[in-house]
């Protein structure tokens, strides 16, 4: 991956005439919209990085006229807050993205699955929906969007858990296949897109796929919103091009004393200072290719922080937020938490950390859902890089 300095972008929040973007887009053949998205190489901004154009294409290919578009606004990853900001500032762009998806796939109903913690946004969103529905009438697009409020469960950010929750069940991820584009909400083809992804689909329509691709690097095109917190003088939301090295990132956002960056939130990876130069932020092969995909959570820690405390905080989070249905996630999270405590308090030898690393590898291989597979990431990367801090 080519090195790139941190490049600031002003695309997402910049004023644009959504009505005009939609007017133009809805005149295009559906296939063309899909092609534009495919060409743009836009990938899901929630963190999983599935190509957006492909997802829409799959749902569009499904037969039947009952399909659903769901905007995943169950932003629960620790350190992420960009979806809240988007919904607060530019809700029409999100809805515009949903309208595009509806037009392309033939869906007539949509939902914004808003996390409970963002209930304060409801009045504003409802007002925006009025405007939006008026637009839909004007465009003669049969598409309505409703709000669905979450009950407070991190796991519902996983798309099949989100769907289960909307169906009145416990928010437990499903077995896959089938995938939601084939068998989603109420058994119908369903597109679940992250808030930010929907906005970028509008932006691709607005600026064109070619222009979009001039940003970022190969395999990780375009820009992305980063939620930056922790030991940084510039905490907040920043839109940056993908592909930057962590070294450049820390130079821009660090406080001069950064010892590690947690990329991707509690389910992401902790990168220590000595690896800043080789690690990039983008979608390719995970840590192996030294690049880390992320939903945008970037937490910086300086040398005053105990990485044990950081890890402990994450593990408490997962012990509570795991849905609990599958063994590796339910039991694994408890074991990791109790395990690091036991080592810290001298009840277990430091060698027990190796047993736990082994367990973490199994969790990654055997958990039922994408989140379950990633809950041990922070454990592995923190223990591997800050072993002494776990023991003493």
């Amino acid at each position, binding site marked *: 991956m080519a090195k790139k300095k941190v490049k600031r972008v002003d695309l997402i929040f910049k004023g644009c005439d959504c009505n005009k973007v939609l007017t133009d887009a809805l005149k295009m053949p559906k296939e063309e919209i899909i092609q534009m998205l495919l060409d743009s190489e836009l990938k899901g901004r929630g963190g999983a990085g599935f190509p957006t154009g492909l997802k829409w294409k799959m749902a569009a290919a499904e037969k039947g006229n009952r399909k659903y578009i769901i905007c995943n606004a169950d*932003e*629960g*990853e*620790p*350190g*992420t*807050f960009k*979806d*809240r900001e988007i919904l607060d500032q530019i809700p029409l762009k999100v809805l515009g993205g949903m309208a595009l998806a509806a037009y392309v796939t033939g869906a007539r109903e949509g939902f914004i699955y808003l*996390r*409970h*913690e*963002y*209930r*304060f946004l*409801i009045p504003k969103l409802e007002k925006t929906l009025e405007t939006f529905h008026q637009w839909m009438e004007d465009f003669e697009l049969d598409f309505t969007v409703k709000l*669905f*409020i*979450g*009950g*407070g*469960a*991190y796991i519902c950010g996983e798309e099949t858990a989100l769907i289960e*929750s*909307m*169906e*009145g*069940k*416990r*928010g437990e991820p499903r077995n896959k296949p089938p995938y939601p584009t084939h068998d989603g909400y*109420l058994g119908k083809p369903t597109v679940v897109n992250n808030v930010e992804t929907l906005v970028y689909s509008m932006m691709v329509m607005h600026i064109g796929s070619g222009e979009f691709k001039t940003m970022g690097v190969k395999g990780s095109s375009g820009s992305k919103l980063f*939620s*930056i*917190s*922790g*030991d940084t003088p510039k*905490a*907040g*939301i920043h839109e940056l091009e993908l592909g930057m090295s962590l070294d450049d990132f820390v130079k821009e956002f660090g406080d001069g004393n950064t010892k590690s960056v947690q990329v991707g939130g*509690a389910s992401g990876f902790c990168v220590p200072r000595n690896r800043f130069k080789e690690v990039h932020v983008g979608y390719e092969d995970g840590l192996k290719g030294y690049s880390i995909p992320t939903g945008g*959570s970037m*937490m910086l820690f300086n040398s005053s*922080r105990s990485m044990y*405390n*950081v890890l402990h*905080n*994450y593990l*408490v*989070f997962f012990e*509570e*937020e795991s*849905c609990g249905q599958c063994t590796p996630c339910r039991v694994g999270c408890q074991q990791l938490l109790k395990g690091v405590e036991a080592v810290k308090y001298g009840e277990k030898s430091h060698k027990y950390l190796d047993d736990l690393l082994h367990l973490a590898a199994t969790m990654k291989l055997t958990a039922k859902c994408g989140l379950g597979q990633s809950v041990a990431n922070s454990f592995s990367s923190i223990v591997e890089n800050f072993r002494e801090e776990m023991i003493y």
Partner: protein
Amino acid sequence: MQKRESAIKAAVQKHGKERKNLLPILQEVKQIKNYLSRSDVAEIGVEMGLALAHVYGVASFYHFIDLEERGQNIIWVCKTISCSMKGSNDIVMTLKERLKIKLGETTSDGKFSLLETNCIGWCHKGPAMLINDEPYTDLTPEKVIQIIDDYYTNN
């Protein structure tokens, strides 16, 4: 009691009996008294024609569907890492002292319940908390006391 029952019937009528409406119904009924009692959950199950154990299973899954009696206002202090780094512990301590309750408890006047919660999405402005639906950010002990005092004077 009468009022709650009719509220449950009304909520079920408004949303419809299909299972997909369970979460909105649980939420709507919860809003009335800030928690769902055993009999509320039972009533919802009966009204919707769902198994009671199942409704309980769903309700207990979600953090903000309270199944324990709560005060008029629920304070949720974020305990996740970014807020914790910025001193959420001090905020909890201050609230405990001001309200004279422990975590999980409700003030004797029934005004406030004090709870912790996981990341509420204000990591860049920690420490943060919710009182009911309202977020409060960049908290300091002084600010928190002011917020509580304002609740008392304004209500």
